Structures are given as C-alpha cells and as structure tokens.
C-alpha cells in the first residue's frame, strides 16, 4: 500500500493506505476524526466538506492520496484553545442546527463562502452558495441567518 503524508488540523500525519481510500474515509477511519460526515454517495449533500489548503472541498470526492502534502482542516480543528470559531458560535446562537449531522459540512462551507464573498453577505448570496449542502431539518432559514451573522463576526462586526 502506498504511503500518504499530510497535515491535518496542524499535525503532520503519515499512513499507508489502500489506493481507493477516499479522503473522508482516511479522516474518519484512520485518524478517527468523525466530525466529518458522509450523507450521500453522489457528492450532493456536503456533510463531508473540509478545507484542503484553505479551500472547501467535499472530502468524499478525492482520494486520500490526492491530499499528499496538503494542509487539511476539519471541523475538529476549527476551535482554537477551546475558543469557538465565530461561525461555530453563530450556528449555536442562531439555532442553525437541529440533528447536527449536516452541521460540520455547513460550517466548513460557510467559512469558505466568507473567504470568497466577504463578510457582508446578502441572503440571496448565501442561499445560492449553499447549493452543495443539504439540510433536512432546519429549512435553511436559521442556517442562512447563522452564516450572515458568522460572516459579520469574522469581519470583526457584532
């Protein structure tokens, strides 16, 4: 089996993996980082979104081997020194989650929306940008609210 090395949540990791191992499987099964979820088998639901070299990616769509040398950030690596990321805090404050299963992917996707679209997000922009993330519980109303608030907080606003 080939060897793959990458940095996950700031820590270097190396493992021998079956070539067909997906990044999400590597994260969940090898590293036991089970916050990244699998909700479908067609790359639609977005429950598996992580950041690879600063960009959001569905970790079910790439092999672990493709992340060789990459810097991977998962939901577990978001809070620093037990202080929540503003986007995490915004989801809690605005009741942006119910069952919690899509939430890690939503939060990781949301941070990427802010990276690309800025901290002053209109509702329409957020809704359009969430095309790749499915939630069955919230009707998105409070997710949209959470992301707008989280974006403002990331920009230093209240």
């Amino acid at each position, binding site marked *: 089996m080939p060897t793959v090395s990458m940095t996950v949540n700031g820590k270097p990791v190396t493992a021998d993996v079956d070539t067909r191992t997906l990044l999400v499987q590597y994260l969940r099964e090898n590293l036991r980082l089970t916050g990244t979820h699998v*909700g479908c088998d*067609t790359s639609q639901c977005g429950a598996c979104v992580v950041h690879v070299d600063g960009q959001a990616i569905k970790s079910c769509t790439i092999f672990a081997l493709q992340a060789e040398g990459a810097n991977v950030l998962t939901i577990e690596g978001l809070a620093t020194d037990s202080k929540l990321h503003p986007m995490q805090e915004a989801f809690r404050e605005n009741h942006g989650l119910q069952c919690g299963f899509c939430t890690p992917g939503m939060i990781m996707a949301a941070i990427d929306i802010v990276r690309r679209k800025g901290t002053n997000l209109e509702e329409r922009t957020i809704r359009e940008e969430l095309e790749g993330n499915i939630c069955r519980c919230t*009707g998105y109303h409070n997710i949209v609210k959470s992301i707008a608030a989280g974006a403002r907080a990331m920009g230093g606003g209240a």
Partner: protein
Amino acid sequence: MSATGIGAPVRRKEDQRFITGKGHYTDDISRPGQAHAYFVRSPHAHARFKQVETAEAAAMPGVLAVLTGAELAADKIGNLICGWMIHSKDGSPMKMAAHPALANGKACHVGDPVAVVIADTLAQAKDAGEKVKVDYEVLPAVADPAKAQAGGAPQIHDIAPNNTIYQWSLGDAKAIEAAFQSAKHVTKLDIVNNRLVPNAIEPRAAIAEYDSGTGHLTLWNTTQNPHVARLVIAAFVGMAPEHQLRVIAPDVGGGFGSKIFIYPEEVVALWASRRVGRPVKWVAERGESFLSDAHGRDHVTHAEMAFDGDGKILGLRAKTVANLGAYMSTFSSSVPTYLYATLLSGQYAIPQIYCEVDAVYTNTVPVDAYRGAGRPEATFVVERLVEVGARELGIEPAELRRRNFIKSFPHQTPVIMTYDAGDYDASLKKALEIADYKNFAKRKKESTRHGKLRGIGLSTYIEACGIAPSQAVGSLGAGVGLWESAEVRVNPTGSVEILTGCHAHGQGHETTFAQLVSERLGIPIENISVVHGDTDKVQFGMGTYGSRSGAVGMSAIVKALDKIEAKAKKVASHMLEAAEGDIVFKDGRFTVAGTDKSAAWGDVSLNAYIAHKFSGQELEPGLKEGAFYDPTNFTFPAGCHICEVEIDPDTGTTQIVGWTAVDDFGVVINPMIVEGQVHGGIAQGVGQALLENAVYNSDGQLVSGSFMDYTMPRANDLPNFSVETTVTKCPSNPLGIKGCGEAGAIAAPAAVINAITDAIGTEHLIMPATAPAVWNAIQKSNGGHKAAA
C-alpha cells in the same frame, strides 16, 4: 419567566458537541474487532429465486461469512411485523404477509436484501458481494397503487388476493349519502399524494455485538425508539430474550419517521454478529437508503365536499388507495387509517364524513409514517376541497373557512376525534394580517405588469398529536400503549439526571426537558442532564414521533417531579424540624411557612442521601422517582399557513415570495426551538409540493433513487418564513402543550398548491408542481392562453 425556564429561547445544550464535530452518531462508533456487513439486494422488483450461490464470495479475501435467507430461516429468526391491526369493513383482519429480514425464495422490491456478506473490511465485503450469484426468475411487477388491485395485476403475496391488505372504512355510509343528496353544490377532486423519501441526512446504520460470555447482544442503532426496537427484536423476531438485548440509539441525525421502524438490516447485523463472533457494523449508502428506508405518503384519492347554499359544509367523502409497498412496515397500517381519516374534519364543523381506504401491496419499498403521517394527506384533501369549493361558489376562501370553523370546545367530530381546545379564527386573523392579505390584489397587479402570475393560498390545518391514550389506540388496533416514562434522579450534590423514554434526533430535548426541570426545581440548567436512547439506562419508553415528546414525555417528567418534590419536602421537614405540611418549596428553597427557616435545594438533596436527620423507618433515604404518564386525549395543534407565489408563465417556474405561519401549539417551552421545527416542517412540505417525487417505472425500478434524481429542497428553493404563534392551552396535559414537530409538513403542501392554482387559474395540477408540470397546466388552461396572449 426565568432565563432558563419555560418559555425562554434557551440556546441548546447539545450544540457544543455538534458544532465541534464531537457528536457520536452510530457510524462514529467503532467496536474492537468489528467486521463490516454489505447487503446483496435484489435488482428486480419481483423475482423468484431458488439458489443463492455463496461459495465463490465466501472464498474471497477477508470474508467471514456469506449468509442467506435460507440460513436465517434455518436459525429460526422470526419475521418483521406490523404492530397495528386493522380490520376490513367485512371484519376480516389485514393480510400481513411474511417479511423475513433476508428474502427467502422471492424478492418483492428492488433493494430487497437477499444475502449479506460479512468481512474484515467494507471494501472486502463489497468485493465479495459482487460474486454472490442469484438465479432470479423475473416476474411481472406492479408499482402503481391505482393498478395494484386490477384484474391481471401481478400477485405479490398469496395471502393477499388482488394485492389488497385491507378495505377499511370510517363514518356512516348512509348518512353521507343523505348529506350529499341535500347539497346545493358538490366539489370533486382527484388527488395524488406523491410518494416521498424521508432522507434524514444521516443514513441508517447499525453495530451489533455479541458477548459469548454472557449471551448478551448490544445494538447501536439509528432509531427513534430503542425500546420498541428491543421489544420487537426480542419478542417477535426472537433474536434474544429482552433482558439480554441492549439497544442504544446514540446521536441520531434526523428521523422524520423513517427511523421509527424495525428494519431487516439491524436484525441481520445482530444475527451475523452471533454467527461470526465479532461485532458487525453496517452503514447504509445513500443509494441503499433510497431502496430500504420506508417511504412516505403515496395515496390516490377521489374526494368530494358537499355545501349548502350559504357555503356551509354538509359532508365530506373520500375514497383512497394507499400504497404500503412490498411488505407491511412496523406501523404502516395505521397511517392511511387512524392517522388519516380521523383528521378529515379539519378545523370545520362537518356533520357527516365518510372515508374508504384500500391498502395495497406493490413491488416498491415499504411505506410507513413520514413527518405528519396521514395528517398531511388528510389536510391536503380537506384544504384543497375547501379552497376549490370556495372558488367554485364564488366565496372568498378565508371567509368560507371562517363560516365553517368549529367555534366551541370540546367538539366531537364524526370521525372519532374530540377536539379539546382551539381558536381557529384567531390564527387565521393573525396570519392574514402578517401576510398583508388585503393588499394581495395590488401585488398581483404589480406581478402582472412584469408578466408574472401571482397567487395566494391558505391552509388552515389541524393535526392530532401527543400520541396517544393507550386504551384509545388499543381499541383501534395498536399493539402497544403510547404512554411515556420518566425518571428523575437527584444526585447528593443536587444536580439532576432526567431519564426519558423519548428520543431526540434534532428536537433539542436535552435543552427543553432541562428547561422544565430548571423552572420547577429552581436550579441552573447546567446542573441538569437528560439521558435517553439506551435500554440499559432507561427502563422503557415509547420513543419520539407524532409530536409526542412535549405533550406526553414532558408530562411524565412533571409527574416524576411531583413525586420528587413531595419526597424532598419530607426530607426538608426533618431538617427544619417542622411539619411536612408547613414546608413550602419555591425558587429552589424549602421554607417553613411563616418563618425565616429554610433549606436550599442542594442541602435537602444531600440530606436525602446522608440520611442523618431521619431514620430509615420514617423515610427511605435517597431522592429518585419515576413515573409513567398516559395521556387522556390526543392534542390538537392547529393554525394557518399562507403561501404567496409568483410564477413565470413562460417557464412554469414557481417562486415562493412569502410564507406566513401562525400556529397554536399550546404552551411553548422554547420558542427558538419551536420556530426551528416549523421551518423544517414547512421545508419538507414545500419539498413535497414543488420538488420531491419517488418515481417508479412500470418495471418497479426506482427512477429517482439518488440525490441526483430526487430533488431535495436546497437553500435557494426556499424563502424566509414569518412564523408566529397563538396560544390556547391544551387542557389534556399538565403543561398545556400541543406539539409542533409536524405542523409545517402538514400545512404546507395545500398552501403551496392552493397558491399556484390561484395563480394559474386551473385546479388540474399534481404534486410535485415542477416547472414543466406548472407550464403544462398553464398551457391546458385558459390562464395559459391569457398569459400567452
């Protein structure tokens, strides 16, 4: 109201773990030495088979076992059952066909499991699964419920001639005839209530572990009701005695009904674990979810409403064919009967109602309760009839509703239910104001100027929740009681654990149940934890569905808290050397009435355990009480949803431009959580009305079997919602709660379709009202010609 008590929008206690990726869903759990299961499923909707060849697969690397239905039968593993007996009009019992956990000799739907491979890794199990050979003899299939009873339709189960499970009725057939004969106007509709796939984002999963030393089996399972799962798997499937089977429902990622039921995969995982002597894990892929999670709805209905000359409703009659799929799922029989026809009175005083329901087998995935379960189907029938009736009679739709509203309570409907409280006019009035109903014509004019069609639709729905009084459901055929249990364990330091038989899978019980305790005991919410979802911890419970956790589950907690308070007062009376009757408990302090002598909650808790102030003969040490609460009635949440749409006549695209929901849920524990429940329900109802459809072709293949084909509502398909409440307290439980989990899904489809049909000027539109469906409806109607002109 305290900051964490009843009525406060307390932020959820459970969120910390979910937003940091520290939830524990079933697939997040790994047991030492666990093997993996992969199911070989029938690719055919209907096929006989004699041989399942497993030798080649069994020889593949890593494979521990390849097991078939024949071996399951040889090991005397029992069938899955439907736990609600329905009798036909002629008195005969429903025709429940055998449902083995692995098909044995005959597959009845695409996805029916015929074998399971157990291997060291999932990849090995899948590789070996491809080597399992089944000698299928493909048979003709039927998927359409409207065709299942026709002469010449393929027969699915010998026990059920014409694929008919039961032919049931409710109401007075003669009286309804008379009501219709006296009518001045009759509105008639043919309705298809489209089949839906629940699609909780967490796929179903199970881990089974057999302990050969004790003979105990443990099942981690994505279930909404672990105790009922244990009961069925023990008593009916015969897997293990109940006391040797532990079912754990850890964090569960949404259910919406689909995780109520007992499924083949969890049974097979348990059996396989015992066979191979290792823990066995199974996790559904989304494609498997589509082919194995119980679907929802799937009714074909003809319905009629009779009116007098003033627009008063004289009667409603409906004939429904309900598709139950290839096997009868756990509660499937109750959905199109007692959860459907009993709600056909809506919010209206209707003198006569009569409903006939034929339930049929088809070569499709079993159909069972999905958010609302029967009540969305009933609401759609009633609210479409009322709306279309109003249009035909030329009476303003809100006014027609008002004329027919039930105005005094209790109200006995002709279809079993006794509504206990409500104010339908209040929710309608508030909704009309918020939606700015009176200025709709102006907005429509504006849309017309831009070449768009605009419509507005109401849905004044009712539902029966708080499921349910055990004697009542028993008399209607339920195999179980539907009470709930609670245990309150006070620790010596005064912190509290609440054990409940309810199960949360997104509803936020860890917060709302703690709010109740915080309010009652005057202790901080941080000092309270809620324990649920483990049959070794909670003695018994009936789980969560039917919006029952507040009305029934929290009532059980109230009952247990009453006992806790009584016992704590006894302890306090010994501590304070006062008569028990003089002790007053308020805001977390026990005070001797009329004195300044008092003891704090924590001191009394400690004294209950150190037991230094009283003898064991006078009072038992400890502070722990349990209760079972059986409701006295269903609860009846009701309200008004208003949908406003704008349609592009050139493309048929519908945009929801406004949504108002005014619901009466009785007393609200946490308005933030209640609003969230309403949002989610509306989204599922809008999904049904505009987007979602489980499509089977004539061969019984599920055409929309993935997220690429089955349209799940995305963020951009939905608007923001204006959600408000009105309150009439529910008189049937101590907290006055009615329940809120299903309202949105029940109300929404009729509101959407009423709005679209208002816009396009034709009633001939079936769900989902996709752009092509709406465009075609416009073309076939005068409205289309007008728009085109």
